[in-house]
C-alpha cells in the first residue's frame, strides 16, 4: 500500500482545532502539535482589536426575570401608587393593571450610596465595585426568546452564545481547560442552545458543568482498577501506533491517539478544579458555603473563580432553571428565596476576586432575561416586562460605583439612556477589547455578528 505522511493543511488545521475543541489538554501538548505545523492554534490567545483591561468574563444569568423595582431600581412613587389602576406598556403587561407596591425597603450601599433593596444586603455592600444599568431593554416578553436574546443576540433562531463569540475572538489562556464553561445545575430556558457554539467551530462550545458527583459527563473511571484501564490504553496505544505507521503518520489518526492520553489524565486533572479541599474556611464562608456543599449558588461561584483563575476565558454561572426561578407571577414574596440563594455567593465572589487582585482583569456581568411589571399579576405577583429592567457590570474597565440610565416613575419604561440587549453585548465586547462590528464569522454565505446589525457601545459605562 502507498503510505506517506498526509500533511494536508486543511485536515491538519481541523485536527488541531478539534483537538483543542472542548478539550482539557495537557500543558505543552498543543504547542508540540503546533510545532509540527504552520497552522495557528485556534484557541491560542489572540490579540484583541484594541488594548483592554478585561481578559476574562464571569457571566451570571438569573433565570425567570428578576424584578427591577424590587431590587436595584428604586421607585418611590410606586410605593405610593400601590393599588391604583393604570395601563402600562409592554407585552403581557399591555393591559390595565393595579399597581403593586415593591415588597422591600431600599437602603444606600457603599460610598456611592446606590439604593439597593433588602433583597440584596450583601451585594449592597459591593455597590462601589458595581456599575449598575437601570435602563436595560429586551425585545420579547417570553422567557425562551428573551433568554436566547440575552445570550445570542437572536430572539428566535439558534445562534452562537456570547461565550462562544468571546472564545472565538480571544482564544483561551489555558490549553488544559476549555475556553468556555457553563455551570448550570438545571436546564435553563431555551435549553442548551444558550451555551452552544452553533455555527462557530466546535471548540468554542460551552462545556457544561453540573454541580454534583460527576461535574463533566464520563469524567469518572468506570473500571474498578485504574491499572486495568492503563493496561487497556497501553494495548490500544501499541496497536494504534502500528496502524498509524502503516498509514504514514496521518495527523488525524495521531491526533485521535492523543485525545485518549488527554482524556486519561483529565479523569484526575480536571478533578482538581472541582476539589475544594484546599480552599480555606474563610473563603468558603465568604461564599456562604459549608464544606462539602454543592447545592446552592456558592459552589458555582467558587468553581467559577477557580476556572477563571486557571485561565478559562468565559464562565457562565446559571442561577435557577426554567422550572425553578425568579418568575413570580403569583407572589413576589418568593423573590426572597431566590435572592437569598444568589446574594451572598455573588457578593462573596466579587470580594474574593477583589482581594486576589483578579477584579482588575476580570469582568463580572449579572443579568436576567427581563424585568417585571409594575402592575400586579395573579394575586401578589408581577408579570414579564421586557420594556425595562436592571443589570450590572463589575470589574475590569467598568465605571464602578455608578449607575446609568433610568426608568419612569413606576418602572414601566426606560426614561433615559436606553441600553438594548445589543448595546449591552457591544459594550461587553468593547470591554474585552473587541469591536462588535469587526468580530464576524462567515456562515451560510453571510458574515454574522453577535449584535446582528445593531448595537452601540455605551461609553458612559467605561472607566
Amino acid at each position, binding site marked *: *500500500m*502507498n503510505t*506517506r*505522511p*498526509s500533511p*494536508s493543511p*486543511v*485536515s491538519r488545521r*481541523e485536527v488541531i482545532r*478539534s*483537538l483543542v*475543541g*472542548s478539550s482539557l489538554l495537557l500543558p505543552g501538548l498543543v504547542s508540540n502539535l503546533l510545532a509540527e505545523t504552520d497552522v495557528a492554534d485556534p484557541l491560542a490567545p489572540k490579540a484583541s482589536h484594541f488594548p483592554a483591561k478585561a481578559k476574562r468574563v464571569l457571566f451570571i444569568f438569573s433565570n425567570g426575570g428578576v424584578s427591577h423595582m424590587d431590587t436595584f431600581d428604586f421607585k418611590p412613587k410606586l410605593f405610593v401608587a400601590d393599588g391604583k389602576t393604570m395601563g402600562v406598556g409592554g407585552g403581557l403587561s399591555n393591559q390595565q393593571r393595579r399597581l403593586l407596591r415593591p415588597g422591600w425597603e431600599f437602603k444606600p450601599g457603599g460610598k456611592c450610596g446606590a439604593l439597593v433593596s433588602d433583597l440584596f444586603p450583601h451585594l449592597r455592600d459591593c455597590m462601589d465595585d458595581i456599575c449598575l444599568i437601570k435602563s436595560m431593554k429586551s425585545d420579547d416578553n*417570553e*422567557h*425562551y*426568546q428573551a433568554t436566547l436574546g440575552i445570550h445570542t443576540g437572536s430572539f*428566535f433562531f*439558534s445562534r452562537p452564545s456570547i461565550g462562544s463569540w468571546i472564545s472565538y475572538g480571544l482564544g483561551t489562556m489555558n490549553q488544559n481547560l476549555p475556553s468556555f464553561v457553563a455551570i448550570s445545575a438545571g*436546564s435553563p*430556558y*431555551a*435549553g*442548551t442552545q444558550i451555551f452552544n457554539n452553533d455555527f462557530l467551530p*466546535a471548540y468554542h462550545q460551552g*462545556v457544561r458543568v453540573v454541580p454534583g458527583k460527576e461535574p*463533566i*459527563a*464520563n*469524567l469518572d*473511571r468506570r473500571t*474498578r*482498577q485504574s491499572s*486495568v484501564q492503563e*493496561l*487497556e*490504553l*497501553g*494495548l*490500544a496505544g501499541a*496497536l*494504534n501506533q*502500528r*496502524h*498509524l505507521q502503516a*498509514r504514514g503518520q*496521518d495527523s488525524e*489518526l495521531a*491526533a*485521535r*491517539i492523543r*485525545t485518549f492520553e488527554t*482524556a*486519561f489524565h483529565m*479523569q484526575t486533572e480536571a478533578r482538581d478544579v472541582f476539589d475544594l479541599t484546599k480552599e480555606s474556611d474563610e473563603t468558603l464562608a465568604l461564599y456562604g458555603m459549608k464544606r462539602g456543599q454543592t447545592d446552592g449558588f456558592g459552589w458555582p461561584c467558587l468553581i467559577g473563580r477557580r476556572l477563571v483563575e486557571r485561565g478559562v476565558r468565559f464562565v457562565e454561572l446559571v442561577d435557577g432553571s*426554567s422550572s425553578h426561578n425568579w418568575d413570580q407571577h403569583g407572589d413576589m414574596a418568593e423573590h426572597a428565596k431566590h435572592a437569598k440563594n444568589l446574594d451572598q455567593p455573588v457578593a462573596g465572589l466579587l470580594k474574593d476576586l477583589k482581594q486576589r487582585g483578579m477584579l482588575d482583569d476580570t469582568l463580572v456581568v449579572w443579568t436576567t432575561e427581563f424585568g417585571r411589571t409594575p402592575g400586579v399579576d395573579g*394575586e401578589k405577583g408581577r408579570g414579564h416586562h421586557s420594556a425595562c429592567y436592571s443589570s450590572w457590570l463589575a470589574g475590569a474597565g467598568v465605571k464602578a460605583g455608578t449607575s446609568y440610565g433610568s426608568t419612569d416613575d413606576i418602572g414601566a419604561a*426606560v426614561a433615559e439612556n436606553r441600553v438594548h440587549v445589543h448595546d449591552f453585548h457591544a459594550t461587553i465586547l468593547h470591554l474585552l477589547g473587541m469591536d462588535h462590528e469587526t468580530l464576524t464569522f462567515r456562515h451560510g*454565505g*453571510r458574515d454574522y455578528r453577535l449584535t446582528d446589525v445593531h448595537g452601540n457601545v455605551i461609553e458612559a459605562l467605561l472607566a
Partner: protein
Amino acid sequence: MSRSNITLSGLSASLLALGLAPDVLGADAVFLRAVNLNGPALQIDGRQWDGTNSANLLISGKLFENQSVALKPATDPDRARMIRSSVWGSKVDVSVGGLPSVECLVVVYVWEDNHSEQFDLLLNDSYVVEKIHSGAAGSWKRLGPWRVTPKEGTVKVSARTPSHGAANLSGIEIWTGDGAIPGVISESFVTELTVDQTAFFEKKIRPVLVEHCYECHSSTAKKIKGGLMLDSRAGVIKGGDNGPVISPGQPEASLLIQSIRHGDPALTMPPKKKLPDSAIADLEAWVRMGAPDPRTENTVATAAAKNAIDWKKGREWWSFRPLNRSAVPAERLGHWPMNDLDCFILARLEKAGLKPADDAEKQVLIRRATFDLIGLPPTPAEIDAFLGDTASTAFARVVDRLLASPHYGERWGRHWLDVVRYADTAGDNSDFPIPQIRRYRDWVICAFNRDLPYDQFIREQLAGDLLTAGAADGTQERIIATGYIANARRFGSRVDDYPQHLTIDDTIDNVGRAFLGLTVSCARCHDHKFDPIPTADYYALYGFFQSTRYPWPGIELEQQSRDLVPLVESARRADAEAACKAYDTEKRRLEKEVQKLKDSLKEKIGDEKKPIESRIKDAQKSSKDFIAQPLPFELAYAVAEAGKAVNAAIQIKGDPAKLGEIADRRFLTVLGGQQLPTSDPTSGRLHLADQIANPGNPLTARVMVNRIWLHHFGRGLVPTPNDFGKQGKLPTHPELLDWLANRFIESGWSIKAMHRTLMLSRTYQLASGPGDEAAARDPNNELLSSFPRRRLDAESLRDAMLVLGGNLDTSPAGEHPFPPQWEWKFTQHNPFKAVYDSKRRSVYLMTQRIQRHPYLAIFDGADPSASTAVRTSSTTPLQALFLLNDPFVHEQSREFAKRIVATVQDESGQLQFAYRSALGRKAERAEIEQCRSFLTSAHTRLTESGTAPDQLEIEVWQSMVRAILRLNEFVYMD
C-alpha cells in the same frame, strides 16, 4: 385620489392618539351622519352615531366583533367600542342613505384584529385608495376624507381584496361643506413652488440634507439605508421602509421630524450626532409648508434601475447554466478505468502528473462498501464469501446485495434526514413531541429502499397530497411524504401573534438548500446579496406555503394537536376529514373549557374555590377521556391545502406587519420563473415540485448526485452541497458532475443506479492514503489519487458497537414511548425533554430540536434545527472520555465478550473472531502476540483485584474488547 390622502389618514390617527385636536383652518365642515357598523348607537367626539340597525343602512359582509383586542393607539372607550365591532370580508359593501344631494366628505374607520391584511377602498364603485395595509393586531385608522356626491341620497363604501386578505370596516362618517373635518387635516405636498419657497429650500434645506443625510439616504450612498432617499422630491414623498417620512403640514406626525429630534431611542437621525436646533427648526418649517421641493430628477427610479438584477449575467453562473454534455476523456492509462467515471478522474490526475494509488485489498473494500451502503460492519461470513468469490463480478455482487438490504434505506435515508433537519419534536419553546412524524422518517427510509425515482421523491414530499387525486394506490404514503413540509420548525409559545412566517421561512430555506442548493431565504428581507434571487422571488415561493395548511403540533398556550391528516383509502377520505375536524374542534372546546374554569378560579377566594376546583377536575377528566378515545384511523403529521389559495404580499424587511406588493406564485426567476397557471385552484405546490423536478432544471440533478458523491468519497465534487451559489465553492470536476447528472436523469433518476456507477469505478476501489507525490502536490486529495480515509459517523459507530454486542434490534421501529397526549402539559418552564434508550439503529433514536441528544452531540450528529449538508468530523477528548467511561460502551463490551467466549473455545480463535468482527480482518502474528500478552496481564491484575473466578474470563475479554473499540482502525474506514 391623491397620494396625500393616504398619508393623512395615518396622521389623523396619530394625532388622535396624541390627544391633540389640531386647530384646523377655517370653519368646520358640517356633520351629516355617522354609522357604527355591527355596533350600537353611541356618542363619539360629542356627535351622535347611528347603530348598525338604523334606517337607510345596508351592509353586505360578515359581522365581527372582538372587544378584547388592545387598540394601537389606545383611544377613548366609545370610539374603541365602535372600532372593535366591524363588518369584514374580501368583498364588503356598505350603503349609507338618507343623505342630501350635495357633495359629501366621507371618512372611514378601519382596523385590524389579528394579522395584517391589504385591501382597496371604493366610493360609489370608484377606487379611492389601493393597497391599504391594515397593520398589526390592534391597529386602526381613520381614513379620508374623500369627496363624493351621493347617488339617490346614498353613498356606497366598499372594500375589495384583489388577491389576498380581508378588510375590517368599523365606522363611516359623512360630512359636507368646504370647511375641515375636526381631527382630519387636509394638506398635501406643494406642487407649485413660490420663489420664496425655492429660495428657502436651496438655502436652508438642501445644504442640511446634503451634509447630514445623503451619506446614507441618496442614490450616491454606498448603501441606501432604510430604503429612504432624500436626494429627490420623489424620494422624499415615497419615504422609506417604515412608510412615509413626511406628513405635509404636520411636523409632529412626520417620522423625519421625530427621528431628528432624537425623541425615540429606536430611531435617531443622524445616528451619531443630533442636528443643530436651527436646522431642526428649518426642517420643521419646511414640513409645515408642505415640503416644497424644486428638485426634478427622480433618483428613486434611477436607483431602482441601478439595483435591478442583471439576469443575463446572473444566468451565466456555472450552476445556472444547462448541463454540459462533454465527451468522456480518452483513456490513456491502458485498461486502468473500470468505467467512464474513471476517465474523468484519470484525465485530471494525468494533467497534474499524478498516479493513482493501488487498488484496495478486498477485505478493506468490503468493509468500506458495507459501512458506506448500510452503515454496519460486514460479518465474518460476508467477508469470507467475498474473499472466496474470484469472479470479476464479485464486487458488483456485494454492491447488489447491500443495495437490496433493508438496512440500506436506514443508512441513506439518514443522509436525507440530515438535509431536511428531521426531528421528532416541533422546536417551539416547549419543544412539543410529534409522535406521528416518524411515519415520514420511515417513508424516507422506504423510499430509498425501493429506489423511488428522485424526481418522484421530490414531488411526493412537496405535493404528495395533490398527487393522490385519481391514484389507485399509494395515496397514504404520498400524504405521509408531505411530512417533509410539516416538519418545518415551529417557534414561540403564544397562539396570538403566532410566528407562522418563521415556519414558512424555515420551509423555504430548506426547499432552497435541499433540492436546489441555493440559499433562497437570504432574500427574505432584501434581494439576495450574491445570487440573482430578488425578494419578490422569495415571496413568490412564500405564497405556495401560505396556501398550505400546516399541522398544529401543540404549543404552550394551546396544547392539543390538530389539523393532522387521516390515513384512509380515498373513498373514506372526506368522511375521515370531517371526523378529524369534529374531533379537533371538540378537543379544543374541552381544553378551553378547562382553561376558562382555571381563569375563573383566580378570581375566587376561600370556600368559593372548592366548587370550581371540582368542576375543573371534571372538565379535565372529560377532556382526557375524549382525547384518549382513539380515532378509527391513523393520522399523519402532514400538510393539506389551506382553505384558500393566495399569493403572498412581500413583507418589507421581512416584517410580516409591513406588507408591500403582491408576488404572484411562480418559480425562481433565474430558473425560468414559471408562473402558477391562473387556472390552478390549488396552493400550487405540485407546480413548484414539477419545476424543481424538471430535467431541464440545471440544479436539481447536480445537487443530488453531488450529495451521493459526498457520502461515498467524504467530500462533494462541489464541497458546499447546500450552496451552489456564488458564496459556495466551485466544483473540482465540473465535467464529471454534469456527466453524472445527465446519467442520473437518463437512468430515470435512480439513486441505486448512481451508487453502482460510483462504486463500480476504479476510483472508488483505490487504497486509502495519498502517495508521496500526491501528498505534496494535492494535499487535500481533491483529484482523488487515493481513497480518502474517514471516521465513522455517530450512527455507524453506535450501530457497529450494538452489532458487536449482538444487541442490535432490527425489528420495525414503531413509536417512540412519548407520554400520552392527554398528559401533555409542556411549557417553556418544563419543556418536553427525554432521552429514550433504544437498541435499534441510531436513525431511530428520538431526536429533539431544543435539547441535543447527548450521544449525537458528542459525535457530531446532524443539527436537528437546520439543514446539515456535511457532518463535521471532530476529534475531541470528550469523545475519548465517552469511549473510556460511558456505560453504553461498557455494556456492549460485556456482551461482545460473552459472544466471543461462547462462540469459540481456544484463545487464538477467540482473538481472530474479535478481530474479524470488529475490524474485518484477521489479526497478524505480531498483533496476536501483543494481545496474548495483554490477556495474561489483564488476567493477573483482575485476579489480584479480587474478580470472582467465574467472572474472570468474561472480564478479561471485556477489557480486551474495550481496547479494540478505542482503536483508530475500528473508528476509521480505509
